[in-house]
């Protein structure tokens, strides 16, 4: 039996000033070499468990602890983060706040210096770690000039450079595009296999990590609700927590097909082995009637004053029509945020034309940027404030401090601040509603709610455009998808066409069924698979 790295016995923790525990009576073991996926809704306790494992709970945050939690044989009540850092490497969600030094090399050297490491072995550790994470070329770059993806890899390298036995990761792919996100998970699995380090990874996008995991834990309202293999998780989730099930598993479940898959490959193998399998019958794509143009960007060029000396937008053209919902896709640095900011006005293009049929509302990436007051209700115009909060389902927090809200509530409040009296809580909706990465940190239920809200706003006459890395959200929201690359629009068409048939910018259902069916969501996929005889489905 391999070494026990983490052991929790009836472990409970309550943050200072909070009535409810963030973790309640958790019993858990993690052994050397395991790759463990930690799933659960926003605010369920995933991040708290990771913070307890690295010692920030209770030594940094305070609060009350009951039971025991041992990491590497050290009791976390008696040993703080400095001691536990001998065993653990930790990476949080926001890479900007966890990169401390000014150059990448110095960032990787800092943990080694702190441990008194020196000489040739330390130099080799920095070099090898940078090469393993593909940041060898960045070693002499200034951290202020790195992109989000590069920063996240740098933070991961700083956590790995001391070769920790237990790697703790809190949504490390939340700011990465699908390509970089998949690469990072693949890289973690490779490191896990090669070094034997255990990985405890909290992630909302379960479908991205499930194929790499040996084991899945689910935290639900502070308690450990499930502990089992990925295959057991797939069965458990469709029955007990459908919001956590992967799209492919939900599709199979709805179509009555067993066993439920944990990866695209397994799903395709299962389908290939079914009697009468062949190309699924394609779904019809209803043509969208474009009545009135809401926005037109024509051959827009833009270059940022800082960062790489290349244009962020290179002659990008785009038209939006009232009533449609559009997903704007692309890699980190493709120009999505720049395009939205030019459409809404904060940035002016160097060249090209921008014509809008009315107001353009923009919700930027960080909801906290909109919070100026100490009470939620004070953030909104008095005449429409309560109505806007009620429409978005957060009127119960009207008296709370905006900074104390959960991730989903923060996003809703920011949306209320941008749209109060402009379609939310009354008033005429703007011609265009633009949102930049609106689903960061959201669970599937919250994403589904947001997609429904945005479609409602589109039906009231706005053109909705959301820049997103989340192709599953794009599939739920959009009639049309626009793919941006290197500052140019490289694909623009119906969501069914763009989100199927590809490798990265395709939903899991589309990757399972192939592009021909046109199905991109679990419901659509089940409809495509359902016509088969029940006897086959049962097989």
């Amino acid at each position, binding site marked *: 039996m391999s070494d026990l790295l983490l052991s929790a016995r009836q472990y409970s923790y309550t943050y200072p000033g909070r009535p409810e525990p963030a973790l309640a009576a958790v019993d858990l073991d993690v052994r050397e070499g395991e790759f463990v996926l930690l799933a659960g809704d926003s605010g369920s306790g995933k991040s708290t468990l990771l913070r307890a494992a690295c010692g920030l709970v209770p030594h940094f945050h305070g609060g009350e602890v009951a039971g025991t939690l041992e990491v590497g044989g050290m009791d976390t009540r008696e040993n703080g983060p400095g001691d536990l850092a001998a065993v653990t490497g930790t990476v949080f969600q926001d890479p900007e706040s966890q990169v401390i030094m000014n150059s990448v090399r110095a960032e990787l050297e800092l943990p080694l210096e702190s441990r008194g490491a020196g000489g040739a072995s330390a130099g080799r550790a*920095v070099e090898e770690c940078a090469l393993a994470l593909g940041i060898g070329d960045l070693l002499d770059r*200034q951290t202020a000039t790195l992109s989000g993806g590069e920063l996240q890899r740098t933070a991961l390298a700083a956590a790995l450079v001391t070769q920790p036995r237990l790697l703790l990761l809190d949504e490390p792919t939340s700011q990465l595009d699908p390509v970089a996100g998949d690469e990072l998970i693949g890289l973690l699995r490779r490191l896990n296999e090669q070094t034997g380090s255990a990985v405890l990874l909290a992630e909302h996008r379960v479908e991205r990590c499930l194929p790499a995991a040996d084991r899945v834990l689910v935290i639900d309202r502070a308690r450990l609700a499930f502990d089992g293999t990925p295959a057991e998780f797939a069965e458990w989730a469709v029955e007990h927590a459908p919001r956590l099930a992967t799209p492919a598993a939900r599709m199979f479940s709805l179509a009555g097909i067993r066993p439920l898959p944990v990866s695209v490959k397994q799903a395709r193998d299962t389908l290939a082995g079914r009697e009468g399998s062949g190309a699924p019958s394609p779904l019809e794509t209803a043509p969208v009637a474009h009545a009135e143009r809401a926005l037109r960007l024509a051959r827009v060029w833009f270059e940022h004053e800082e960062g790489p000396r290349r244009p962020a937008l290179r002659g990008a053209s785009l038209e939006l029509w009232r009533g449609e919902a559009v997903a704007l896709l692309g890699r980190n640095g493709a120009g999505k945020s720049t395009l939205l900011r030019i459409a809404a006005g904060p940035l002016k293009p160097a060249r090209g034309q921008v014509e809008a049929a009315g107001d353009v509302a923009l919700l930027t990436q960080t909801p906290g940027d909109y919070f100026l007051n100490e009470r939620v209700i004070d953030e909104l115009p008095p005449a429409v404030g309560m109505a806007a909060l009620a429409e978005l389902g957060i009127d119960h927090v009207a008296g709370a401090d905006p900074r104390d809200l959960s991730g989903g509530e923060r996003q809703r409040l920011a949306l209320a601040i941008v749209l109060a009296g402009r379609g939310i809580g009354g008033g005429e909706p703007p011609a265009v509603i633009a949102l930049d990465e609106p689903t960061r940190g959201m669970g599937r239920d919250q994403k589904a709610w947001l997609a429904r809200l945005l479609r409602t706003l589109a039906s009231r006459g706005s053109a909705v455009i959301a820049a997103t890395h989340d192709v599953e959200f794009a599939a739920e929201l959009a009639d049309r998808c626009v793919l941006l690359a290197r500052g140019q629009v490289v694909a623009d068409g119906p969501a069914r066409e763009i989100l199927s048939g590809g490798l990265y910018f395709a939903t899991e259902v589309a990757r399972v069924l192939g592009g021909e069916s046109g199905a991109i969501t679990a419901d659509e996929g089940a409809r495509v698979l359902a016509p088969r005889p029940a006897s086959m489905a049962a097989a």
Partner: protein
Amino acid sequence: MSALPTYRPGTSPLHRARPGVAALYCAVPTAVALLFDSPLALGAMLAGVVWAGMRSGVGDQLWRAARFAIPLAVLVALVNPIASRRGLTVIWDGPTVPLFGNFDVTLEAFVYGAIAGLRVLVVGMAAALFSATVDPDELLRLARRIAPRSALTASLATRLVPLLGRDADRLSEAYALRAAPPAANGLRRGAVLTRALAAGALERSVDMAAALEVRGYSIRSRRRAGRVRAREPWSVNDAGFAAATLCVLGLAVALELSGVAGFEPYPLLHLDAGPADLLGAGSLAFAMAAPFGLRHHRASHLDEETE
């Protein structure tokens, strides 16, 4: 683009000098400016700093810093003649205000104010030269071996400044994107955004402190920090900048003791500006510039050898 000068790696002699030496070289004009009143010495230091900045390829950063330093210098220059009652050469017969007395402006107070402004300019430009050319990570690494806790504070501060700058830009943009911005007045808007930025800065600080903890920074208090990189021997370049630093300091002390380039603002202006005084001030500027000239000569010499 940030108005604050920020370090970018470079290949100039000053960029390549060891951080402790480069920091002292950038600090010496400040020391001279704070110790001496002579406009000749201050002018020489300003010329030396500007020359060093241009030869280091950070002239644009110095210019951006000057756009803040010059108005501050002018403000300082204007305050002294109003506040000071000293000097005999009245150039403006001001009013007499009960309790505050006479507000005459004298030539001596005006010139002394201008020199104070020049001093501010020298200090500001030397700080900009330091920020743009000395690698903060290397300097902090040096400091950590001597004063770990102070270095930790400095690490966080140097990293937080550009982060907060970006936060401020984002907050300002989000403010303009609100459905109903709460205040149109520029002053009120500034106050609201500053308060929000301060709240955000606290969150950022806590997050960064947590990151430092999990990286094992607190282990330092129990162990001596390791030296990841091998100790580098002194180069000719390092020696050149160290010699220039000592030379500027020595010359400044010698000038002060010998009375060369002397200056007395009150009661009547007196400035020694003979050939010896100009030569003395010129020597200060030359000593500041020498490491770059030496490098240029050596580079040329190497090119000739290659040919």
